[in-house]
């Protein structure tokens, strides 16, 4: 025997639970999102910073070119022009400058220009009196502008790292909270399942606050538990019924034999026949139990096909014609076609049972009628007899297993036929009902859904 606790997987260092999985997934997604954001931010931001720097440098270069043009314009030529403003502007912004005339001769150059080759270099034409008179070349060496982008980038990275930390924390907390909400109903269902397994037949999950799938799981579980419970109840009822029904013939046999042994009764043929009858009753009961078990199994494996209820009724009536003839009971048939979904063989078994019952309770001469026809959405089969009838108080019980009417004591049978018939009809999604007037007769009505010509 396995203890339920043994079924659980061995606990690992970090348990592989829904909780940890969810928390880890949330964490992973959050970190991935932050990382992606960081990469994109760095890429786009560095672009932006470069553009900014480039614009500033272009502007500065243009400014220096403007200052050089102003120096040129005061003399209308480069020779003797005062270019200090341009040089100062370059020096102030940490850059080196070279000014050339319109044919490329150097007219002015800052001292560090030559040594700053390789630095970012910008050029702008110098306009004097509306025509190009030369060109300035600026090389940026100082940190004052080129450092701006790296400072900006490191600030961004710090912001991203901080954001990643906060996001991770939030993801972890959210993951745990969601896991908690998900696992609580799951744990509840597990505990109810264990209880059912341990034999608590009334254990049910009941309504749960959970996502739809888990609610469906809970509902499905409860429905399954109900079905199992019903089957278990049916089984118990059957066993109890059987034990109950076996007791009477066994009690008669025991008492009867003891009376013979004790010499209280003589083993006369009459006495022996009476005891033998009880043995036959037991034997029949055993037979019918097998039939009942087979009917239960058959009800689970019906082969439903469209078939005409009238034909089934007709073939069942044909099969019993000789018995009706022998009993001198006339069987009237009024059969109109009515197509139903049915397992023909099982359905014939039901009709045969109804007809046999009608015959059994019909005194000689009183006719039995079988009617078949459509009625609204249903197909109806009715067997009517003019026999002794069934007292109103007994009507609800006639479909019970082993039930036999008080007046049936003299007839054969253990009262299982109608129970089987009702069971088979239920399996056909139909129902069997009875109405009766004591002394006037009984009508057994079989109702099945009609197959509409599609």
């Amino acid at each position, binding site marked *: 025997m396995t203890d339920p606790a043994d079924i659980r997987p061995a606990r690992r260092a970090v348990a592989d639970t829904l909780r940890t999985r969810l928390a880890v997934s949330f964490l992973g997604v959050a970190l991935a999102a932050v990382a992606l954001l960081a990469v994109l931010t760095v890429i786009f931001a560095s672009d932006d910073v470069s553009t900014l720097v480039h614009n500033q440098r272009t502007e500065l270069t243009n400014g220096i070119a403007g200052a050089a043009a102003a120096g040129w314009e005061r003399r209308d030529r480069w020779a003797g022009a005062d270019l200090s403003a341009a040089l100062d502007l370059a020096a102030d912004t940490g850059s080196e400058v070279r000014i050339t005339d319109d044919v490329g001769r150097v007219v002015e150059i800052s001292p560090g220009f030559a040594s700053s080759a390789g630095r970012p270099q910008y050029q702008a034409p110098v306009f004097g009196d509306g025509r190009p008179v030369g060109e300035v070349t600026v090389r940026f060496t100082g940190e004052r502008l080129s450092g701006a982008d790296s400072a900006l980038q490191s600030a961004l990275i710090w912001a991203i790292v901080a954001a990643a930390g906060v996001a991770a924390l939030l993801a972890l907390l959210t993951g745990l909270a969601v896991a908690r909400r998900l696992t609580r109903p799951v744990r509840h269902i597990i505990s109810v399942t264990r209880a059912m397994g341990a034999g608590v037949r009334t254990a049910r999950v009941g309504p749960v606050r959970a996502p739809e799938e888990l609610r469906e799981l809970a509902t499905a579980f409860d429905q399954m538990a109900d079905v199992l419970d019903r089957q278990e109840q049916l089984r118990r009822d059957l066993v109890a019924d059987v*034990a*109950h029904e076996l*007791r*009477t013939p*066994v*009690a*008669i*046999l*025991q*008492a*009867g034999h*003891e*009376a013979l*042994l*004790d*010499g*209280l*009764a003589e083993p006369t043929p009459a006495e022996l026949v*009476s005891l033998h009858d*009880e043995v036959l009753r037991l034997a029949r009961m055993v037979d019918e139990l097998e039939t009942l078990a087979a009917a239960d199994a058959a009800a689970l494996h019906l082969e439903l096909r469209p078939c005409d209820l009238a034909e089934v009724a007709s073939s069942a009536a044909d099969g019993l014609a000789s018995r009706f003839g022998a009993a001198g009971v006339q069987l009237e048939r009024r059969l109109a076609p009515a197509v139903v979904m049915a397992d023909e063989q099982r359905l014939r078994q039901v009709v045969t049972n109804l007809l046999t019952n009608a015959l059994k309770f019909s005194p000689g001469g009183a006719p039995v009628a079988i009617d078949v026809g459509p009625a609204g959405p249903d197909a109806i089969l009715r067997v009517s007899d003019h026999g002794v009838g069934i007292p109103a108080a007994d009507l609800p019980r006639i479909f019970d297993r082993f039930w036999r009417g*008080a007046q049936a004591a003299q007839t054969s049978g253990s009262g299982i036929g109608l129970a089987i018939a009702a069971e088979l009809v239920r399996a056909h999604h139909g129902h069997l009902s009875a109405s009766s007037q004591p002394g006037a007769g009984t009508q057994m009505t079989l109702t099945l859904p009609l197959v509409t010509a599609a």
Partner: protein
Amino acid sequence: MAATILLVEDETKLRDLLRSYLEQAGFSVLSTGSGAEALSLATTAEPDLLVLDLGLPDLGGETVARELRATSSTPILMLTARSSEEDRVAGLEAGADDYVTKPFSPREVVLRVQAILRRGGQSATAEPASYGGGALLIDESRHVATVRGEDIDLTPTEWGVLVTLASVPGRVYSRFELINRVRGYEFDGYERIIDSHVKNLRRKIEQDAGNPEIVTTVLGGGYRLGLARDD
């Protein structure tokens, strides 16, 4: 004066059999298969005890017992086809003094009836039963067996075997039946074990255990009491 028993049982064969047993035990018996009739008979005939089937077709035995209890204190022995604990309790609550579950040995019903009446102060046979011209005396009320004037010390099983055999002298009891009666239905073993008890019993009560006269063997059948009952 013989005590009157009202027997209420709807199964005709069972009723007739019980009736013979009760009459043979010296009771005068009224019988019916209907609960309603039982109630009217109970008031008109004033029986000393009711043997009442729980599963009657008209009024349930429980209802009969309850209605009867409302007006009288006539003892009731319930016959029930239901053996579950709740049903027994329900039967006893309805006013039954004792119950026997079906299937039963009719003799057990007679013994229970006698026991209830004895409890109720009715005179019962105080005399020990005597067999074989006084060679064997069995006093069930005192639980004593006397063989040739000497009280014999018996184990419960030996006592049970002797009393069972003596209940109908001359009748053959199979080993299976003896086991059932002595040990109850829950016994589920080798029925030949009864032989060793019989052997011990013979050693205690027979003059010659190799040639028994009181507990005799029936080949292929079982055992029976070899002595006739003295009247």
